[in-house]
């Protein structure tokens, strides 16, 4: 129901607009909801809010509207996380992933997996309560196959979280290399602005710099790490340890080699060897300097100073990320919380499969019941105290 309204304070009308009334329980929160639309001048908006608060309203807490929706059964936790994803997504691909969650694609799959596990549990439970005249027909093999199929489904979904993270948060691209090879110069050149402190004494970058960059429709988080060298400086050592951790979690590495006749140095050889199994782009940086000679390994020749090779580098990174984010799964998971819950579901289900021949159907059924409980905790059907608080604390606005 919509109607034109006039906004009036003690001194008379200050704006006009539209009032939309959504009666519960079919509104977004399940309660009666009113939306007011006014003109966009922040002065008007803020005055309207002040007047409403003076009249007894209060500002919504972070995630409050979604939370109320969950409490009144308008959406489950999975869809609620979809709202969060939609707000936070770094690109259109991420928005589409969020849409899957909001449209209930994940919830539907979870319901299906839950039903399968419940059927298997019921089968086992029935055996416990059926002596002699057994009306049960499924063999252990059939049951095991059914359970393992659920586990397979879960594994597929968990493996899609890489893609989920890349399209929602943006891929993480880490620059690694020996100290003083010009990583920070390259980092700045890739960002197109001066962000990292550049100095030609080794060990200038002692911490890790993390900056988001947008290359066309590709969103990335660039990480500039401290160069690798033995160090006695505790601050630099801590920075190196952190760098190690972050690069391990990166979706793509940019291995920076310093263009010189001695390339690769012993340290560089070590880095090349250590990152051989990872998604990476090797860069031969500083080719503008005289007398450096050709690259000793296949690599992209760049110069942070002249900008030479930067476009090729970005394209190479894009290629790596696209491969990383590729998956044939239709359904993509963006929530780390759900991924870790799903891991528990799969573990409990596998425990049931192991227990069945050794400890019998009673124990196996208990393991499956636990698996179902993990699903329920994930979807909010049996959310433990505190889960909602933790979840909605991540919302930064009152949606």
């Amino acid at each position, binding site marked *: 129901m919509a109607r034109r309204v006039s906004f009036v304070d003690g001194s008379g009308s200050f704006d006009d607009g539209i009032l939309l009334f959504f009666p519960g*329980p079919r509104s977004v929160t*399940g309660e009666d909801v009113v939306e007011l639309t006014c003109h966009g001048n922040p002065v008007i908006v803020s005055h309207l809010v002040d007047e409403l608060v003076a009249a007894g309203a209060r500002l919504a807490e972070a995630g409050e509207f979604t939370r109320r929706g*969950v*409490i*009144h*059964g308008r959406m489950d936790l999975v869809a609620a996380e979809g709202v969060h994803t939609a707000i936070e997504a770094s690109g259109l691909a991420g928005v589409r992933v969020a849409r899957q969650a909001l449209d209930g694609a994940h919830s539907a799959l979870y319901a299906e997996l839950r039903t399968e596990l419940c059927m298997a549990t019921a089968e086992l*439970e*029935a*055996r*416990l*309560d059926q*002596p*002699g*005249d057994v*009306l049960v027909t499924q063999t252990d093999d059939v049951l095991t196959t059914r359970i393992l199929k659920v586990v397979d489904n879960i594994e597929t979904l968990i493996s899609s979280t890489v893609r989920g993270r890349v399209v929602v948060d943006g891929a993480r691209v880490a620059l690694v290399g020996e100290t003083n090879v010009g990583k920070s110069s390259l980092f700045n050149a890739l960002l197109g602005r001066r962000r990292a402190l550049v100095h030609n004494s080794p060990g200038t970058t002692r911490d890790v710099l993390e900056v988001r960059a947008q290359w066309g429709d590709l969103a990335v988080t660039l990480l500039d790490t401290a160069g690798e060298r033995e160090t006695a400086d505790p601050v630099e050592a801590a920075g190196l340890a952190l760098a190690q951790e972050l690069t391990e979690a990166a979706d793509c590495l940019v291995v920076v080699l310093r263009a010189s006749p001695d390339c690769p140095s012993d340290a560089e050889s070590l880095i090349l060897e250590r990152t051989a199994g990872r998604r990476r782009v090797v860069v031969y940086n500083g080719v503008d300097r005289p007398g450096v000679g050709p690259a000793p390994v296949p690599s992209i020749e760049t110069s942070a100073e002249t900008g030479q090779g930067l476009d090729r580098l970005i394209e190479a990174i894009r290629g790596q990320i696209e491969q990383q984010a590729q998956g044939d799964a239709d359904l993509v998971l963006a929530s780390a919380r759900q991924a870790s819950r799903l891991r528990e579901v799969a573990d409990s289900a596998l425990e049931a499969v192991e*227990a069945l021949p*050794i*400890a*019998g*159907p*009673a*124990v196996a*059924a*208990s393991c499956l*019941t*636990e698996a179902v409980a993990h699903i*329920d905790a994930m979807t*909010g*059907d*049996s*959310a433990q*105290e505190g889960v*909602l608080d933790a979840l909605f604390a991540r919302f930064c606005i009152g949606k």
Partner: protein
Amino acid sequence: MSQAYDVIVIGAGHAGCEAAAAVARLGKRVAVITLHLKHIGRLSCNPAIGGLAKGNLVREIDALGGIMAKVADATCIQFRRLNTRKGLAVQASRAQVDIDAYPLEMQRVLAQTQGLTLLEGEVAAIRMTSGHVSGVILGDGSELHAPAVILTAGTFLAGILHTGDVKTIGGRVGDGAAHALSGSLADLGLRLGRLKTGTPPRLDSDTIDWDRIDVQHDTVPEGRFSFAEPGPRLPQINCHMVYTNAKTHDIIAKQIHRSPLFSGVIEGTGPRYCPSIEDKVVRFPDKERHLVFLEPEGLNTKRVYPNGLSTSLPLDVQVDYVHSITGMENARILVPGYAVEYDFADPRDLGHDLQHRNVPGLFMAGQVNGTSGYEEAAAQGLVAGVSAATGTTFQLARDAAYIGVMIDDLVTRGVGGEPYRMFTSRAEHRLLLREDNADRRLMPTGREWGLVSDQEWERFTERSERYDAAADALNVQLTPSVATKQAFADAGIGDIKGPMTARELLKRQGVDWDDVRTVAPSLPELPILVAEQLTTDVRYEGYIAKAERQAEAMRGQDTLPFPPNWVWADIRSVSTEVRERLDAAQPKTLGQAARVPGVTAAAVQQLAAMMVKYSAQA
């Protein structure tokens, strides 16, 4: 003339007997009123005690000082362990008992009980004084006075028996019904519903061709329910097994319209789990045969109970389908099978003490609460008896006893349209609630409440000490010496490759306590019961530890009571539907609220948050 007691028990079936015995054990005066003294403790249906999950109930009753296990042991004519291939944790015992000896033994036990009076008569009404129960009024107008009355009317409230289209008033074949009382209860505001249950025809042993029928073998001749010193055993008998066939199913299918269960004559809802033979034929048309156990009803009777053939079909159909089974071509039916339809009172109106919320002083136990089974009835009798005698709710937690699961289910969720039967699957903590460890779970509680005798407590303490000592001894190291290797080979328990503890060896499949003792002579000899407890605890320790953690998490919610100033109608943060359900169920704790059907997880969280607010105000 009026007589004053502490507690009056109406009915002397399995619930009534156990209730009265519990009251007397606590030193209170109790009167039991029954329609026929000779029918005390009768087995109206099959001549067996125990079974899956039910065996656990019997052991639990024993651990709490009850009488059912002892009476069953004294009259047992066959003892079996069920589920032996489904893991140690869910095994259960079942005793075939002599159908004539069991009630006699029960009557003997009750007659010897101090402070217990047995009376013959019909109760016409519950006597009320200022809104509280004050006794009972008998059919002849006389009164008995007591501040607490336990109603254990079984299937006798407005009972109707059906054999085909023949209807008889009664609660059991050969007995009348209790009609006056049913009316009186409705006047008190009890919500009554209707349920049904069936029995099979009883057959003449002399007319069955036993030579052509398989014997059931897996018996445990020395098995006992009770933790007490084993007494003498009656001679043991065999049970047999037969199968229905296509002809049987055909006969039933053609006459199905004559079954009141199907023609709509019986209004009550019947059980899905103990279905009549006509139910099985209709619901499982693909099944080619159904198993029927032939259970002799006793040593001095020719009656045989064909377990699996319960029915309400007319007698001529019963004759035909019985004769269609191999070995029973000439079997004579001594008593036709019949279905009984009766009133029950909605157990959701009861508290965990089984006292009616709207009729203070009235306790209810057994089939009148919508349950099925002797064991379920006896367990409720015990709880109602202790609660009525002490004036304090005798509540066992869901992770402590099947009894606790059953009563919490009954008062929180109700019976859901069919008689409530105890199942292993109803107990979420079943790895903890084993038959073998019932004494370890419950005897300390029973002792605290004054239910366990000095003698039984001493025996328990001794068992516990032996358990602890044996558990310690299991840490002994075995080394793969030539001698040990030989001992392993001799015992047939595999090989020993590296050093291992006796405890690790006990975890091996198929290795029992005595096997371990042959290679680790330092281990003490143990009574079978203790060896079984310890073996199960060791073999399942990982799963048991996990089950304990889950129980712990659940217990948190169950120990969170709603504050005294809590008013359900005022709780606005949950939906109207959920609020109404909770208002009707009146749960005492957050955990119980969570188990009320239709209460969502989100609602439980809201309640938890509200409880914090309330307690801040209080």
